[in-house]
């Protein structure tokens, strides 16, 4: 690696060194309490998958260039130069971590490994070593925001084709526009994912609740966050913020995508609208009596997988359970404390990288499979696209024999007339 590249990367590194990051990099005592925290390590017990070890890969570079100790007595903290080989180590550390932050629950200091890994991901972006797939997806999202007019016609036609299916699910209030788009002054802007599965059930429920809503032109998922590029993350998020402001909506409702929800909820800052997840919105409709669900619609035992970015990292924990109590009498918890729920193994961009990571995702998540099997449930439901894909892959790979469902689709299927 030439000096200029290294200097440029170190500038990126320095840009990440805010107070919290410095705390995290300075504090670890390498006590090893986090050893049992990571699902990857529990499934494949190699030292390199211990949270503290991953963080140490970044920390050693930090010591070398940003700490007096590393400059004066390099071997003391095993500080390390930023080289091509270091980038390879950073890649393995960053893309074997799903950013579930379960290790934070174990750590006596509460060190956030996901945040430390964001340095690794940024250095990989800066040196063009990041996964190409994620960058391509992020760039496509950004381009769509810039050239909406080009995509608009195709999108509107696609939505038109879905409307009949929405009417089939819920006829009463669907009216002439079962999927309203670009409605100025709507109360709620629903931001879906690309795909009918994210739009049809949601539209049916929103219509059933009599919501004054509108569908976003943009997909919720933030590939910028997966790849760890803060500029792209912001650009992708801003498309939705701008649309929400233009339409003067009171609430932005993010579909079943954990990362999209957390990014919008925690990074959008002070805005004239509130940010909710679709799970929170459904729970609210139930509480307010705006929708009713058939408790006998599903006969088999159901368990719920808490998406890490929604539950442990954003606090949406009670709402899915409240909904499930209206759908079934046989709900089975995976973990006595949702804080300790195992990650499905698909986060951090791993699912978005597709086949490239499939083998690793299957091997690194056996502990999740065990957790699901121990519930004895026949239906596994979740509220995150990534988790759904990963759980479906696990279901096929380990022949678990369960039905993996989106929570919103179960709500839509269980809707009953008032």
């Amino acid at each position, binding site marked *: 690696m030439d000096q200029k590249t290294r200097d440029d990367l170190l500038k990126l590194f320095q840009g990440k060194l805010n107070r919290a990051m410095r705390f995290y990099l300075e504090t670890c005592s390498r006590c090893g309490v986090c050893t049992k925290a990571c699902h990857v390590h529990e499934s494949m017990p190699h030292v390199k998958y211990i949270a503290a070890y991953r963080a140490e890969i970044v920390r050693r570079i930090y010591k070398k260039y940003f700490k007096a100790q590393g400059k004066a007595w390099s071997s003391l903290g095993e500080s390390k130069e930023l080289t091509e080989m270091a980038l390879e180590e950073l890649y393995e550390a960053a893309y074997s971590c799903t950013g579930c932050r379960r290790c934070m629950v174990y750590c006596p*200091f509460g060190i956030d490994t996901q945040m430390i890994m964001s340095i690794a991901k940024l250095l990989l972006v800066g040196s063009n070593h990041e996964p190409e797939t994620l960058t391509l997806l992020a760039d496509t999202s950004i381009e769509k925001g810039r050239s909406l007019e080009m995509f608009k016609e195709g999108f509107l036609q696609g939505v038109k084709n879905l409307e009949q299916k929405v009417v089939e699910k819920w006829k009463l209030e669907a009216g002439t526009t079962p999927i309203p788009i670009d409605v100025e002054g709507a109360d709620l802007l629903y931001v879906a994912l690309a795909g009918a599965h994210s739009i049809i059930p949601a539209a049916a429920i929103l219509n059933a609740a009599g919501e004054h809503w509108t569908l976003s032109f943009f997909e919720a998922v933030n590939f910028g966050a997966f790849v760890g590029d803060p500029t792209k993350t912001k650009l992708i998020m801003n498309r939705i913020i701008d649309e929400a402001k233009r339409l003067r909506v009171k609430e932005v409702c993010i579909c079943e995508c954990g990362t999209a929800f957390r990014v919008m909820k925690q990074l959008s800052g002070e805005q004239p609208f509130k940010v909710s997840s679709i799970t929170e919105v459904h729970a609210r409709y139930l509480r307010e009596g705006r929708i009713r669900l058939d408790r006998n619609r599903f006969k088999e035992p159901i368990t719920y997988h808490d998406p890490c970015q929604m539950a442990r990292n954003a606090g949406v924990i009670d709402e899915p359970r409240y909904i499930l109590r209206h759908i079934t009498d046989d709900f089975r918890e995976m973990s006595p404390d949702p804080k300790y729920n195992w990650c499905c193994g698909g986060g951090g961009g791993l699912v978005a990288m597709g086949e490239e990571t499939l083998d690793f995702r299957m091997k690194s998540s056996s502990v999740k499979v065990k957790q699901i099997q121990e519930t004895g449930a026949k239906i596994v439901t979740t509220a995150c696209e990534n988790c759904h894909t990963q759980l479906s892959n696990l279901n096929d790979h380990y022949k678990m024999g369960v039905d993996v469902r989106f929570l919103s689709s179960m709500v839509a299927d269980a809707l009953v007339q008032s």
Partner: protein
Amino acid sequence: MQTVYYIILVPMVYFAFGVFVAGTAARLISLFRKPKNPSTLEIFPQKGPKFLGALGQTFLLPTVRKHNPLLWVFLMTFHICFLLLIIGHLELLGDFRIFQIWGHEIFLGGGFVGLLLCICLLFFLFRRFVSPNRELSVPEDYYLLVLLFLTMLFGSEMDWARRWFGYGEMLVEDYRDYLMTLWHLRPMLPDAVTTSGHSFMLVLHVFFGNLFLIFFPFSKIMHSFISLPVNKLKRG
């Protein structure tokens, strides 16, 4: 030899104390001047008041108790004994009524505080020789533990000699005299401190203690100051 004793017991003490205070202050100021994280770093669910929760996490180490109870026993013992040790050293500088709410000889603990600390440090050291802690550890971890162990071993030996074996040539009053002259910037070494049979223990204790203080601001021991604000981040 007297010159070496003098260098360790006087100028090196001032130097170490200066590096400790200035270094720690500079590190803390530099850390707290950095901008805050733009988003919350909280994890959920959280119960109870946030600050109290962070205090509990910092001082009671509930996550260690849950996931590694044996380590927790040693960590709690170590930190409580360390606190008693700090109180003991403060009492050499003056009479603090608050510390004498229950009457005791200086130092607290009848020699057992030092003994427990040494045992804890050996536990911390030897657990680092076992995988996976071995792979996680860096030389700093071992050096610090060895340094602390040596500091405490020589410090405690003086206490044990005096309390358990009736050694009467170097008493608490002698340490007090020595420390008070340092404190008042008129350093003098009482004869008992430099010429008694156990002088070398005091000199080694102070020497390793000095090294520890010099090392402190540049090491992970800064967690003594950062642990609470870091835990506060987790609580939101």
